[in-house]
């Protein structure tokens, strides 16, 4: 179990371009589809908890998934695994990497990687919306979920609210309407 945790999050750390949210499809693929460690609702909750805590999303998710699987030792193993690739890369190729950055091959691959990462995040959003029941048959529940989604997005995008405050407010609304 610990070895699988380590390998999974080492992989996540290795390809973590474009921020933690971009890694959600990969985490989903490994944690849900391959290892069946938890349900999609649980993973969604973990992403929420990761968004509430300071620190990078990907490492926070590693801590939570690791803890759920093997307690605090799992949390330690998963977080070491997720930061190890960057540590190794920085120590080994830090200087070379800075020079490579301006190489045309490097630039053109990132020219392609960045939009693909954006597409991956869109896919993650669609999957989570599906799991939250937003595409189900229209009912009071579906509408309430769409309403909370739209409200949250406006708060983030137009009002520039911090994710933490949006999550807390959303939780309070949830207690009021679903509780």
């Amino acid at each position: 179990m610990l070895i699988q945790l380590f390998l999974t999050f080492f992989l996540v750390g290795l390809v973590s371009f474009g921020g933690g949210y971009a890694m959600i499809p990969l985490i989903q693929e490994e944690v849900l589809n391959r290892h069946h460690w938890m349900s999609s609702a649980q993973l969604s909750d973990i992403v929420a908890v990761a968004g509430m805590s300071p620190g990078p999303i990907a490492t926070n998710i590693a801590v939570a998934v690791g803890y759920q699987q093997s307690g605090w030792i799992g949390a330690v193993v998963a977080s070491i695994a997720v930061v190890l690739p960057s540590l190794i890369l920085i120590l080994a190729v830090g200087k070379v990497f800075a020079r490579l950055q301006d190489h045309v091959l490097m630039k053109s691959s990132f020219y392609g990687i960045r939009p693909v990462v954006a597409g991956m995040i869109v896919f993650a959003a669609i999957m989570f919306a599906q799991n939250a029941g937003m595409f189900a048959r229209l009912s009071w529940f579906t509408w309430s979920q769409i309403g909370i989604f739209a409200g949250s997005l406006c708060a983030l995008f137009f009002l520039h609210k911090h994710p933490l405050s949006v999550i807390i407010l959303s939780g309070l609304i949830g207690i009021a309407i679903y509780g």
Partner: protein
Amino acid sequence: MNHKLKLLTSIFMTFLKMGPLTFGGGYALIPAIEKEVVDKKGWLRNEEIADVFAVSGSVPGAVAVNSATFIGYRIAGIPGAIAALLGIFLPTFCLMLLLTVFYVQLKDNPKVEAAFTAIRATVVALIAYAAIKIGRTAIVDFATGALAAIASLLLYLGHLHPLLVIVFGATAGVALVKIREHGGRTPTAGTSKLQEKEPIYDYMI
């Protein structure tokens, strides 16, 4: 020996203090790191720190964690890198662990369940917001827009592994630039535009 240990402790403490600041996103940390490391401690010079941030942004992983590691390495080698990494990572690790323990304990409480039912919709908004933010810097022309659409279709309909999608993106990027070269356009037509927009991605966190 004693001197070395003192230096390592100092590196550890410096980044330990900064750990909680990562709340504002990785790039919010950059001015704070610069002030501590260059102005207050005098560990690195201004031009060195610019180099550090350039590398940290291009190596995979969170930029705050990467910068700390690289700075620690520059000051005191591998032990320095580990001291800095532990310093920046420990506070957020402890807080996240605490939150997870709370979540695991409380998740079956009906009130908490109700709260998370709503929060699941907010998570979709968080992810959508991240997509908009990265999309605005990544989608600079028609080709990149098409790549983003193809990537989500490959995942959604083709059930392709996310790793393969990243490999596909890199290959397509190289191919696109090569095709443009043959078409007589400047080889870095799209990429030069990217370069200017580079420093804004606080979605790295």
